[in-house]
């Protein structure tokens, strides 16, 4: 479907666009990664799919860290028994 690309695959950043620094490879910020890995991404049926809403997240800082935590995130273990 998609032709392989010569583009470097790893996300880079964050890079302030007005800095003198080129878009060098930098480690992705955890907060950006979690926005995507916990709040988005496709959900498969019948899996032990993580729904972050169900996780207690007793660490309040963690809850705040993940800005994508909100009512739209489906609850976990949805669709009956996992696996």
């Amino acid at each position, binding site marked *: *479907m*998609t*032709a*392989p*690309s010569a*583009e470097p*695959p*790893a*996300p*880079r*950043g*964050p*890079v*302030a*666009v*007005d800095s003198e620094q080129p*878009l060098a490879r930098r480690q*992705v*910020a*955890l*907060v*950006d*990664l*979690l*926005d*995507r*890995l*916990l*709040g*988005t*991404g*496709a*959900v*498969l*049926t*019948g*899996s*032990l*799919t*993580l729904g*972050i809403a*169900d*996780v*207690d*997240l*007793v*660490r309040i*800082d*963690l809850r*705040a*860290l993940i*800005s*994508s935590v*909100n009512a*739209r995130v489906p609850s976990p*273990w949805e669709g009956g028994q*996992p*696996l």
Partner: protein
Amino acid sequence: MNGELRYVYAVTAPLEAPLPDDVRGVSGSVPYVVDHAGLQAVVSKVPEEEFGQEALHARLEDLGWLERTARAHQAVVDALTALTCPLPLRLATVYRDDDGVRRALAEGSQEFLATLDRLAGRVEWGVKVYAQRAPEPAPAAAPAPTSGREFLRRRRQEVTSRENALQEAEELGRALHAALTAQAEDVRVYPAQNPQLSQVSGQNLLNAAYLVPRERAEEFVGRVEQLGAHDPAVRVELTGPWAPYSFAASDAPDEREGVHDSAVC
């Protein structure tokens, strides 16, 4: 609890080349491919004592574990992005065995094929806009207020100038978002990030993801640089290219956008 589970990273169209040998997934596992229904799932075997339902619940509270797992997940998706345009899955999608993965591929095959088709040849860019406060004038420059009234006047002036700066930053953020939206095929706006936790200074005014065809990536990045640079009121940060995480769910665009708590300046 001594068994092995299957951790799934992404669904793809059949890969034309194998994953590089040195790619490692979560818990140091080696990713492999499960074929079914004209699709492939990239999975690895993970210990049940770490990824079983209860264990997962406990470990998700552990920021160190969460970070290692998220980065390993991302490493596999990154490796796939060099080969194809993967449909990245949410963190910690786990099945009992390969058959469970095949069943999921079969059940979702129509949706996956449609989504893969929609995302083929696209990448995601993340753009964040922060208000940036202009340097405060040195206090020594102004003589001490001679009266209470003078003190209050200066105080009002300071507040007004801060409010104006924020307003200007918001306007710039909105203009940037509008311009980038016009260049993107799809947009997703995330809630603002907490500045204390993301450890960056300035109020986060915009936190958005843009879906852009690969061949227009350079143009898009150029536009961000052109619009975001040189204005002292804002700082613009670009991340990517990402696999299209933000657009992988098959929900309707109107469900993905316009939530009241989103950061759209």
